[in-house]
């Protein structure tokens, strides 16, 4: 099982490194205009315009910048599986240390939060892949994934905040209360 954990982490780190590498290559090295991650939050006309621009820029790898973005969006599905698994795993591990009942419940709530974040991300990707289809790009037929992207960040962000809160605020050394409080002595009669 430890091997499975290690492989899962290596997989997640590998996909994350690949995503970062692609971003650096396209945006920093090849200076593709516009922010790849900000696309879902742009006004629809501007986002459609940007996709259209990317479809006309030839990149080093061959094909257009839009082809690369499409490829990265497909790779993103793996990243989604990775971060949902990691969030659930870390929350579950932290549950074993979290003695505060309410915080323990919040960590358990992280499971659906992570899954919903992942589902919103998947939906966002499907919408973007549809927007990037060759017969849709530059045809004024753009659908914005704005709401799914926002929900993704809300759910995912909440899960990360809960996890960080629990990790940073959990008592460093903990003992269950095992002393029965002694009742105060009765007050002397007036």
């Amino acid at each position, binding site marked *: *099982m430890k091997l499975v954990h290690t492989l899962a982490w290596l997989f997640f780190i590998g996909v994350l490194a690949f995503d970062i590498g692609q971003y650096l290559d396209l945006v920093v090295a090849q200076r593709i205009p516009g922010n790849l991650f900000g696309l879902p939050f742009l006004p629809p006309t501007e986002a459609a315009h940007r996709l259209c621009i990317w479809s006309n820029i030839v990149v080093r790898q061959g094909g257009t910048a839009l082809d690369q973005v499409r490829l990265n969006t497909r790779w993103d599905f793996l990243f989604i599986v990775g971060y949902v698994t990691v969030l659930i795993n870390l929350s579950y591990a932290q549950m074993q240390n*979290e*003695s505060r009942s309410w915080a*323990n419940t919040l960590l*358990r709530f992280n499971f659906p939060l992570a899954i919903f974040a992942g589902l919103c991300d998947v939906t966002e990707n499907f919408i973007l892949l549809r927007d990037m289809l060759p017969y849709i790009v530059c045809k004024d037929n753009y659908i914005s994934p704005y709401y799914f992207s926002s929900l993704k960040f809300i759910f995912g962000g909440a899960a990360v905040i809960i996890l960080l809160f629990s990790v940073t605020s959990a008592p460093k050394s903990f*003992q*269950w*209360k095992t002393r029965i409080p002694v009742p105060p002595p009765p007050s002397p009669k007036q």
Partner: protein
Amino acid sequence: MKQDLINKLLDNNISIAELATLCPLVNETDLADILQRIYDLNERDILSLAALTGLMALFDNNKNNRRNARFTKKIQKGFRDNSLNKIVLAEGDSWFNYPVVLTDVIDALSMDENLAVFSLAKGGDWLLNMLTGRKYVEELSVLHPDFFLISGGGNDIVGARRLAAIVKPPDGENEYEKNLWANALCDKADKTFTEFKEDDFLEGTTYLSKDFFALLMFFHLQFYFMMNGILNGGHSGVTKFPGITILTQGYDYPIPSTNKNFGWNPFKWYIPFVRLLLGHGTWLKIPLEIRGIYKPEKQRKVMYAMIFLFNEMMIQTGAYFNKTTRGRVFHIDSRGSVGENGWTDELHAQPPHFINTGKVFAYCIRDAEDQHKNASYDHVYVVTDILNKLK
């Protein structure tokens, strides 16, 4: 003579004195023989029925690996140099290791920095597996723990729809009335700390078959065999673990149900999830219905009678060993602590209740410093009582 007593046990007409005589006489072969006759199966089939396989076993191991890695870390930091720190070995079922989503009793106990808990517990494990596997014997020899915790028997009753085999519709024959030992368990029970609903209990017992009482006495023999092995070295009479204390637990009264419990509380999302995927309804409700016990109120009473007697059996078994030397076996009594609305599914409490039981285990362990003067009564820590005192 031993065989006669075993036959009487299986026929549900053994006397209290005869059962007491039988306890120290039985060995592993006898236990296997009794088991085969109760279950009407050969030993290999029973063991394969009880075996943990597939995804569940994988998750069980994963959780234990995490716990035991923490145990090793604690030990490496000089844990045993401080006499206030205690080593705990836990063997048991899903109350001690619920491998997904829930925080169970041992999770709660392990949070205490003064306790290093090594876990062998596996969700879905049968007491039979624990005894035949003898993993705990191996770990006792290696760890030399201060406390040995055991939670077992639940799956032997409800696993593989076995519950249907030990209940019956009322047919005029009252097996409870015939069983003097079970009557004595009820009579001797302390009813101050846990509310005793006599009418519910008596009505519930009318549904219990001869095989239930044989199984209950078999549990008694199994626990006796296990405890005697640990505390007295079995037939040798010389223990390898002087000073070890055993803690037992006996569940709370469950509510048979097939309701998936969909609701609007987002923080209880896991209840329908667990109920949909992990066997809810198949342990209690459906086996009872198979035997024609349909009314929810009657089903509840059947389980009430079973769990009441199971807990009293555990207390009684421990009492054998506390007679000669006090403070060897303690029982953590969870009856009434979960309540009607505190269940995740038919068998498992919601995490806050598991955590509460874990707290009382910790309390009992720490109370050893005070010679267990703060027990609810005798050698029993009643969860509801201790939690009230700690408020």
